[in-house]
C-alpha cells in the first residue's frame, strides 16, 4: 500500500476551489523551508535528498553527531542539528537552531520513529520502558515539535498561503498486528493527533497530514522483519518522491483556498 484510505480522505481539498482551479506552481517546494526529523537513514535521508532536489531549504535533526555530520557533508546546502525529539529538553534547542538557520518554517516532517522492543515482542512481553520510548519518540516528540513550531508555521501560512505538517504513519496505526503493540499503538496515537490538529487549525491554512509510506527497504524494517523479501519492499527514494508530491499538492490546495478573495472584512 502507499497511502491508506483515511489519509486520502484527509487530503480532499479544503475550502472552495476557484473556477477553473489554480495554476499549479512549477516548483511548489522551491525555497520552502523544511525540517525533517530522523534524517540520517531510511526515508528521512531520502527525503532530505528529494527535497533539496526540488529546491527546498532543508534542515534535519538526528540523535547522533557522526550521522548528522555525515549527512550535512553529503548535502552541502542542508542544516544538520543534533538532537533527540523524544527528549523534552532538546525540543526548544532544536527549534532554536532550525529557525535560526532557516529564518522560519513552511513544512515540518515528523519522520523519526522508534520501533519499540526489537526483536518485536508480544505486548505481554514488552517492557514498559520500551513502550514509553516509542511513545516519547512517536507521539510526544511530534506533539512538542509541532507545538513549538506552530508560530512559524502559522506565520508562513499567512504569508504564503499554506504550511504543512506531515507525520509519517504506518498501516500498523490502523491494523492491530500481533507483536507490533508498542509501535502500532504509538502510531495510532500519532495518526489521531494529526487528525485533531487538522480539526483545530483548519482556519489557519496549516495542513496536517498523516501518511503511510508503505513497507520500505530500510534498516528499521530489517530490525522489525529480518527475513522480509527485500524485492517486495519499496525503495525509500520512491517513498520520498511520493511524500514530496503529497506535500506539494497540499500546498497548492492551501494556496488555492487563500486565492479566494478574503471574506467579510470589517463589520
Amino acid at each position: 500500500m502507499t497511502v491508506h484510505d483515511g489519509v486520502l480522505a484527509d487530503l480532499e481539498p479544503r475550502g472552495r476551489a476557484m473556477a477553473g482551479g489554480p495554476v499549479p506552481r512549477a516548483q511548489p517546494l522551491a525555497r520552502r523551508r523544511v525540517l525533517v526529523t530522523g534524517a540520517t537513514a531510511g526515508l528521512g535521508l531520502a527525503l532530505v535528498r528529494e527535497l533539496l532536489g526540488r529546491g527546498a531549504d532543508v534542515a534535519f535533526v538526528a540523535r547522533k553527531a557522526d550521522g548528522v555530520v555525515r549527512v550535512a557533508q553529503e548535502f552541502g546546502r542542508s542544516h544538520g542539528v543534533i538532537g533527540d525529539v523524544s527528549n523534552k529538553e532538546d525540543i526548544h534547542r532544536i527549534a532554536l537552531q532550525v529557525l535560526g538557520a532557516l529564518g522560519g518554517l513552511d513544512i515540518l516532517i515528523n519522520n523519526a520513529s522508534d520501533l519499540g522492543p526489537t526483536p518485536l515482542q508480544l505486548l505481554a512481553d514488552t517492557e514498559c520502558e520500551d513502550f514509553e520510548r516509542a511513545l516519547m519518540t512517536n507521539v510526544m516528540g511530534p506533539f512538542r515539535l509541532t507545538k513549538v513550531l506552530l508560530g512559524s508555521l502559522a506565520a508562513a501560512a499567512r504569508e504564503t498561503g499554506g504550511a504543512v505538517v506531515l507525520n509519517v504513519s504506518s498501516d500498523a496505526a490502523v491494523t492491530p498486528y500481533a507483536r507490533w503493540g508498542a509501535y502500532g499503538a504509538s502510531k495510532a496515537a500519532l495518526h489521531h493527533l494529526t487528525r485533531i490538529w487538522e480539526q483545530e487549525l483548519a482556519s489557519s491554512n496549516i495542513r496536517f497530514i498523516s501518511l503511510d509510506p508503505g513497507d520500505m527497504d530500510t534498516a528499521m524494517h530489517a530490525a522489525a522483519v529480518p527475513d522480509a523479501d527485500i524485492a517486495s519492499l519499496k525503495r525509500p527514494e520512491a517513498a520520498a518522491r511520493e511524500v514530496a508530491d503529497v506535500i506539494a499538492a497540499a500546498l497548492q490546495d492551501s494556496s488555492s483556498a487563500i486565492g479566494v478573495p478574503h471574506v467579510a472584512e470589517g463589520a
Partner: protein
Amino acid sequence: MIAASEPVQRRPDAKLLLIRSGGSIEHWPRSALASLLRPGDLVVANDAATLPASLFGTHLPTGRSIEVRLASRGSLDPAKVNCFFAVLFGTGDFRIRTEDRPSPPAVAPGDRLQLGPLHATVESLQDHPRLMLLRFDGSAHDIWAGFARHGKPIQYAHVNAPLALWDTWTPIAGNPVAFEPPSAGFALSWDMLGSMTQRGVQFATLTHSAGLSSTGDAQLDARLPFDEPYRIPASTAEAIARAKARGARTVAVGTTVVRALEHAAVDGHVTSGIGVATQRIGHATRLRVVDAVLSGTHEKGTSHYELLRAFVSMGTLTRMEQQLESHGYRTHEFGDSILVEKAIVSAVF
C-alpha cells in the same frame, strides 16, 4: 505593584486594565480580551522567539568570570550572527539585582572571551565600559549550536527559579531574534486567537528583535531601547492598509509592535520589508498607524512607560498607576496587562 515572580505566561486570574479612548478606566479579566476588541479590528503581534542571550564564561586576559548579555544585533539575516552588541556583567547571576552586581573586569578591544563552547572577540566599546560590540568565531551553524547548548534566557531577580527557554517563548513565537521576550504576547493563546476570529477580529504578525530592557546602569538604561531590526511581511502591511481603508483600528500587542509599525509608517501607510527601528516614542510622537496597545505594566521612567505617553496624557497615566496599585495588579513580564486606546482628543492639560 506586586512583582510577578512565577514564570506562568497565562495565569487564569490575570487582570486587564482598559483605558478607553475617552479616558475612562475599566478592570477586566484578561481572558475577556477578545470581547474588548471590535469586529473589524486588526491585532498585530510580534512573533519573535527569544534567544538564550545570557552567556556565562571567562574574560581570558584576566581569567575572571563574566556574564555577557546579548543586547541587540544589526540584522535579522539568519547567516549573520557573528556580531552582537552586548552588555557585560561581573560575577554572580540573575539572583543578584542587576544594579547590585559586582563590576566586570575592564575590557579592551581585541580581548578574547570564552563563553562555554563559544569564543568571541571584543571588537569595540560603545562609549561605555560595559557595552561592547562582540564578534563570535565560527560559522552561523556553530554559533546557533553554541547558543542552544550554552545560552540561558536573560532573567531578572524578581523571578526566583531559573527560566527555561520555553518559559520565554510566546505561543506564537517563530524566528529567534528577540533578546528578551516580547512578553505582551504571553497573553495570547490559540483559543483566544480563535475567539478573535469568531468575533471578526483579524490577526497578523511582524518580527521585531526586542532588545535588552535593563542593564543595571543608569547611564546605559538611558540609552534604551537600542536600535532594533524588524521585518513586516507584505501580508501584514496589506492587512493594515485594508483596516485603515475600512476605518478599523490597528491594535498592537506589545510596545515593540508600536515601535516597528510607527517606524515603517510613511504617510500613514506601512511599508513591508526589513527596517531598523531607531526612534524613541514618547509624548511628542504623533502615532500614525497604531490605535491601541496591549502591554504589561511598566514602571515610570522606563522607555515602555514613556511610549504610553504617545497614546494618553500624563494625567491619565497617573490615574492608571493609582488604579494598578489599588487593584493589586502584578508587574513585570509574567504580570497582568493593560490595553490602552489612543485618546480621542490628546488632552494636553
